[in-house]
């Protein structure tokens, strides 16, 4: 064996035997350092004939390079082992609880309102706000309620004085909109309504309502149904269907109430739809011509529809909440269930 190969084999063996980073460093210095054994070997080149010298020099350098890469390789191995050893001492119990942040939570009514807004704004509707303490005329007369009509019995009203009341329905914005804007119109509101009713699980003196309406040329019941279908799909899923049933509200003619196919059981019948596969959502219809004419809107040219629904119904279905009062109690054990 020639002296280069002999030295290389020896160094290689020591590199592999080094178990610590500093031991490896020592081996590296001893063989590959400036005054290491390979440098010493290179100095013996003077004893060789001039013809042999280039080959000898080349062989020494090749051996050094090879060993250097072996050192690097071994060093990475040892570093990894060392890191693992140290890390093991830092092992923690990740079953211990994570830090708790203060996280803002939207009230479930707000969450529903925002989804409704997004759906209706997406359909080209403009948000409009009217007062909650409303003039009596906008709540009733402007909505075609005849004086002393039993339709008002559903709407036991809180009055402040002879002319002002707590609006019983968000439809009260209609008259205000017609006073300010001309058709074509697509308008909606979401807000509080009030009725002087006994409070129980499903009735409150306060509730939130959506009211949307549009007026344009040639608008009809099929457009109402189509828009409700689009709205219901946005709120409850693409497969949601809409069903009409005749109903009566003084401000629409024809009047209907509408139901959606139950999004929770796909028609199989469940607790939410009480086994009927349909969920009644609200009232709708074509805006009564008396209302349009009262604002000098030509009913031969312009027609419109309106629909309404209760906001609380949506989180009640979605989260299976069975008591309306929970929304206004604001118990932390209730609110913290919804990370909305």
């Amino acid at each position, binding site marked *: 064996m020639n002296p280069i190969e002999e030295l290389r084999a020896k160094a290689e063996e020591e590199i592999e035997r080094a178990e610590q980073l500093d031991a490896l460093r020592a081996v590296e210095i001893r063989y590959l350092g400036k005054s290491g054994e390979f440098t010493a070997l290179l100095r013996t080149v003077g004893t060789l004939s001039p013809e042999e010298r280039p080959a000898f020099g080349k062989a020494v350098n090749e051996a050094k390079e090879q060993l250097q890469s072996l050192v690097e390789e071994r060093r990475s191995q040892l570093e990894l082992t060392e890191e693992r050893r140290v890390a093991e001492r830092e092992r923690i119990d990740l079953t211990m609880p994570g830090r708790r942040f203060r996280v*803002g939570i939207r009230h479930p009514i707000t969450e529903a309102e925002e989804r409704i807004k997004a759906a209706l704004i997406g359909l080209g*509707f403009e948000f409009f706000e009217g007062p909650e303490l409303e003039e009596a005329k906008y709540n009733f007369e402007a909505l075609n309620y005849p004086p002393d009509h039993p*339709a008002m019995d559903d709407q036991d009203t809180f009055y402040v004085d002879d002319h002002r009341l707590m609006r019983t329905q968000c439809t009260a914005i209609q008259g205000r909109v017609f006073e300010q804007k001309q058709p074509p119109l*697509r308008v909606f509101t979401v807000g509080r309504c009030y009725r002087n009713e006994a409070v129980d699980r499903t009735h409150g003196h306060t509730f939130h309502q959506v009211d949307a309406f549009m007026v*344009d040329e040639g608008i009809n*019941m099929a457009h109402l149904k189509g828009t409700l279908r689009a709205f219901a799909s946005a709120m409850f899923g693409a497969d949601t269907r809409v*069903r009409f049933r005749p109903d009566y509200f003084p401000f629409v003619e*024809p009047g209907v109430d509408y139901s959606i196919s139950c999004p929770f059981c796909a028609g199989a019948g469940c607790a939410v739809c009480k086994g009927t596969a349909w969920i009644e959502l609200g009232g709708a219809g074509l805006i009564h011509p008396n209302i349009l004419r009262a604002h000098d809107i030509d009913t031969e040219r312009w027609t419109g529809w309106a629909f309404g629904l209760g906001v609380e119904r949506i989180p009640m279905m979605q989260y299976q909440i069975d008591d309306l009062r929970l929304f206004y109690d*604001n118990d932390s054990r209730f609110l913290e269930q919804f990370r909305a």
Partner: protein
Amino acid sequence: MRLTHEWVCEYVETVASPQEIADTLTMLGHEVEAIEQSDLGAVLAVKVTPNRGDCLSVLGIARELAASDPTRFQPTELMREAIRGWTLGDEATPLSATSVTIETPDLCPRYAARVWNEAPMQASADWMQARLVACGMRPINVIVDTTNYVMLELGQPLHAFDLDLLREERIVVRTARPGEKMRTLDGIEREFSTEMMLICDAERPVAVAGVMGGEETEVTQTTKRILLESAHFQPASVRRTRRALNLPTEASHRFERHVDPEGVVRALNRFALLLSQQTGVAQEPGVCDLYPGRSELQPVQVREARWNLLLGMEVPRAAAAASLNSIGMRVAETEEGLTATPPSWRADIAIEEDLVEEIGRLAGYENMPERLPEGSTPQGGESALTSLRTRARDAMLRLGFIEVVTHSLRAPSPLDAPCDPIRLRNPASPEVSVLRNSLLPGLADAARRQHDDSFFLFEVGRVFLPEAERVCIAGLMRGQLLPEHWRSGHAAEVDVFTLKGALQEVGARLHRLPAFEQSNDERFHPAKQARVVVAGQDVGVMGELSRLLVERMHLQPSLFAFEMDLTSLLELPEATPRYKPFSAFPHVRRDIAIEVPKDVPYAQIERLIRESAAGLLEEVWLFDVYEGKGIEEGKHSLGIAMTLRHMEKTLTDEEANEVRERVLQALASLGAKQR
């Protein structure tokens, strides 16, 4: 209204089950809310809409069923008899036993009566009692039961008087005289106002028209002769009287919703037949029938193009005509469509759209197509106020506040804003009696429902001030900044500066930075409160809630609250952010420690620093406040940090020190000494 299934089947022959009948009625617009069981089988609880008084009877419901599908629901002989009116042959004979005067024909268009000279006082037949019980009525005696039975069957309320107790044995229909009183059947003495319509005898009231009879002339065990009233009263008048007296009855419910004026004598005849069938007693021949307010319902035009347009589906003219005809209309064809004269029981049909609804309803809405509106699409979107509200809410949510929704109708509270709240004229209870003028009382209620000592709550909502409604945002907080955790134990406690920081964040989000100025609001700690001011205008209040008040309200101590008026804020200029270029060179930090009299406001110090270090000052912040040992009484030591940076070069230490000296010199004017 509750009706037995078997009774309905006496009017229409059908193989339909109670459930199928319920579904048919529901799809016709008469929602069957429940199918109950009784001794007579299924009972349908039908919700009749207020425009369809004609459906408050077996006859009315049967008419609707027959119109919806005449092959499935075939009218029986009894129904045909009902439609013919059970004519007894003596209708044209005037009744000699009594006389009727109508002083108010506009309020009482028709009044008819029959008389029995021997009143059988016995129980009604078992079958009649069974039906009344199943429909939710209590049997009393054959006279009262038969009036109730006819009302359920035909929708016409009847009232029986003891004829011997009517002075001069006659009836006068008139409005009440001032101060007139009567004891009604429920035993309550009632005083009437002069617009109320009464049924009177020669001297005094004997019934409230369309609402309830009087106790004195009631039919009793000793009654010998009876007068049976069947009338048509003006709906709105009955409603006003019923409401004023707070006396809802089965009769008033029907009269308010319009009772068929042409069915008045029919009901008298039906009563006579049923009474004679049960007791063998016959009526005196003749009817007293006054009909001064006879009015024909006017024919209504409906254009084919119009119903096709409004319904969004094609209904052939012949089908539309057949539909209208099936609900009792006299229909004639015109060039453009149809003319229909409504039957006497359909006073709700007055305009073209009413007929369109009937055509659509009978064609069935299930066949209606769905289309999205075409044509011009206006720009949708939020209003400016809603958008501001959403941004304010987002800011609070980012800060970790939990949103609550509290009642706007509530009891007055010590936390109300310092102005009288608007009161309800008809409060539901003391707890539901005023309109909130602040969100703070509701937040305090919510605070009581928190199950942790620490909470961050907020609400966005309307408050009602005497002059206007405003949208406000308010927050209430207490306890630890962060929830307790095993790594760090208790975190810092919330204080007024936490509140201020939160408001500054909200202000930044709304692009309207608030200032905080001295205030004097009794709801807050006298020395830890401020007015929130934007662009020189008051927009809110903030501070620690008054400890005394908190104690009196039994709330947890150390509560920090704010309320801000977003409606006002909207009117104030918005400082929309503009990009400012920043330097690529490193900054230099210089700290100063000064001893300064405590009555020098920090804001003044900071302002002076900003002025004197202008140009190079990037940020300035207070990092330490110390008083006590080593500091003169009445003074405190402030540690203030500044970062300095040049736009175009790296600052040298000398340049930075120079700024620091300049700042210290300027601060000397406030009595500040470097420590």
